[in-house]
């Protein structure tokens, strides 16, 4: 684990007299390996460690009697700062319904998270309506309908032949029936599929969502920067949900996504059940990434 590794590293070096900048660089190469093995993107890790190095030298780690502890504290603080301050509430619109649009790659957990988010808001006194705008995946509508039943929420589905039209009608219904929140599930899509990214842009345009939530698989590797950046540039995302974090994925993708989009991680998915949604805490993820 990181503390032991760096401790061991520095104590070996101190044996030769006082620490040099080269020693700190070497120690951080070790940290880089840990970050890469935790699936932090290569470039993101590089930039992150550059900041850490500047701080370490600046804070005179070289003169410290406990350099390992000091470097680790710097790494930890920088990670938490990068991952985003503590949890903030999802935005609400001035006029109801507040719309939340769920987007992301295939299989990342959007449909399940749509149900989880609805459940979460319902427990907090909201009246969320769900909308099934994935008309492409076999039985996707069935899936969201079942999910809706399981959490006691209504689902707008099968009201039109295109996702855009379903979205439009769902918002219309939410307004006319006085729902305060509308959560819209969409089909998984590749960020390199221009037609589908365009479709999503149109859906966003139609809905004016208060939040566009990028639902990302917690075990994503180096590619996380590519998809997150593309969704961010093409659509504009306002927040991230990192799913399947109940496994042993280290979650380095979170750092990459946060770094490249500048948007906060809102929630983590911690299981298949519809109550398995946790508000995001940077310190917990920082510990996990550092192993």
């Amino acid at each position, binding site marked *: 684990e990181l503390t032991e590794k760096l401790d061991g590293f520095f104590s070996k070096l101190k044996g030769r007299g006082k620490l040099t900048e080269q020693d700190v660089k070497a120690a951080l190469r070790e940290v880089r390996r840990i970050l890469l093995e935790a699936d932090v993107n290569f470039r993101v890790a590089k930039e992150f460690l550059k900041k850490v190095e500047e701080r370490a030298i600046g804070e005179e780690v070289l003169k410290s009697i406990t350099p390992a502890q000091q470097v680790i504290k710097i790494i930890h603080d920088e990670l938490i700062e990068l991952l985003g301050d503590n949890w903030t509430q999802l935005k609400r619109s001035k006029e109801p319904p507040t719309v939340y649009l769920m987007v992301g790659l295939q*299989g990342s957990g959007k449909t399940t998270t749509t149900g989880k988010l609805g459940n979460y808001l319902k427990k907090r006194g909201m009246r969320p309506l769900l909308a099934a705008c994935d008309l492409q*995946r076999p*039985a996707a509508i069935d899936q969201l309908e079942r999910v809706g039943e399981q959490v006691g929420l209504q689902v707008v589905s099968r009201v039109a032949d295109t996702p855009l039209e379903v979205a439009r009608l769902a918002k219309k219904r939410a307004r006319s029936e006085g729902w305060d929140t509308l959560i819209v599930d969409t089909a998984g899509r590749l*960020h390199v599929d221009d037609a589908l990214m365009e479709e999503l842009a149109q859906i966003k345009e139609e809905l004016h969502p208060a939040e566009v939530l990028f639902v990302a698989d917690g075990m994503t590797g*180096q590619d996380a920067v590519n998809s997150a950046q593309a969704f961010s540039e093409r659509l504009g995302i306002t927040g991230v949900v990192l799913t399947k974090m109940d496994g042993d994925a280290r979650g380095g993708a979170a750092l990459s996504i946060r770094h490249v989009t500048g948007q906060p991680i809102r929630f983590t998915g911690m299981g*298949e059940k519809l109550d398995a949604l946790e508000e995001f805490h940077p310190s917990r993820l920082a510990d996990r990434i550092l192993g």
Partner: protein
Amino acid sequence: AVGAGKLDEDVLEEIEEILITADLGVETSMELCERLRKRSQVKTLVGDEVLIAIQEILEDMLEENTSGRPVDTDEEDDPENEREIGDSPATPHVTFIIGVNGSGKTTSIGKLANYYSRQGEKVLIVAADTFRSAAVEQLSVWAERADVEITRGVTGADPGAVVFDGLQSAVSRGIDRVFVDTAGRLHTNVNLMRELEKLDRVAKKIVPDAPHEVYLVIDGTTGQNGISQAKRFMESLPITGLIVTKLDGTAKGGVILPIGRELKIPVKWIGLGEGMEDLVPYAPEFVVRAIFA
């Protein structure tokens, strides 16, 4: 830049970055760079020679991954082992499809069922994911598209019961090939891993050698966690091959290299899209080209 001049430490660092960014992981990337360094010490590598050397080393590593395996899964491609329709073997060939949530199992089964059915085999799909909402409905659509039969249970039914019924039906109806879809599960969930072992035992009651093939489905965007997945799933069932999905995106799927190196599991199929035709038999050139695309 790689392939511009001669191979020096700067270029090696660049190559390491390319490999790590392709999800090969630190250790495998370093190993590849070490082999490259050694080669260039024997004879200086310049320009295109660098790229060619990298490709050769990658192919070597991929090849090493599949040699020395106790189970010869390449029997599938061995013409002598082609199952002739009308050969009527006593029991059907059974394949389990396993993997973590959302990796592409159900979709891949649709594609595989279509592939073999097109070759004239009588295929049966067994819908043993009785847990996830609308999983059976989803697989049923694929069975219809591939024009193959499907055995289902009721939602919440015991998956073992569905496997039992499915295989019994396959035997009595002279089915050539059975694909068993299972629920997505995290490899860290002990109960769900035990459930897989139970499905294995149930299958053997009907077809003693089943499953003949166990495909672990890995999402092509997966990072180093893919190694942990392969290791843990391997502890429950002998994995005979990988299906790597979603390589029609920008991910390179490089994690198949460390998986192959550590566990000797070969890649069998590659998923390149959401349509029925979007599955190709694995070929090493595919990986090499993807990494340097």
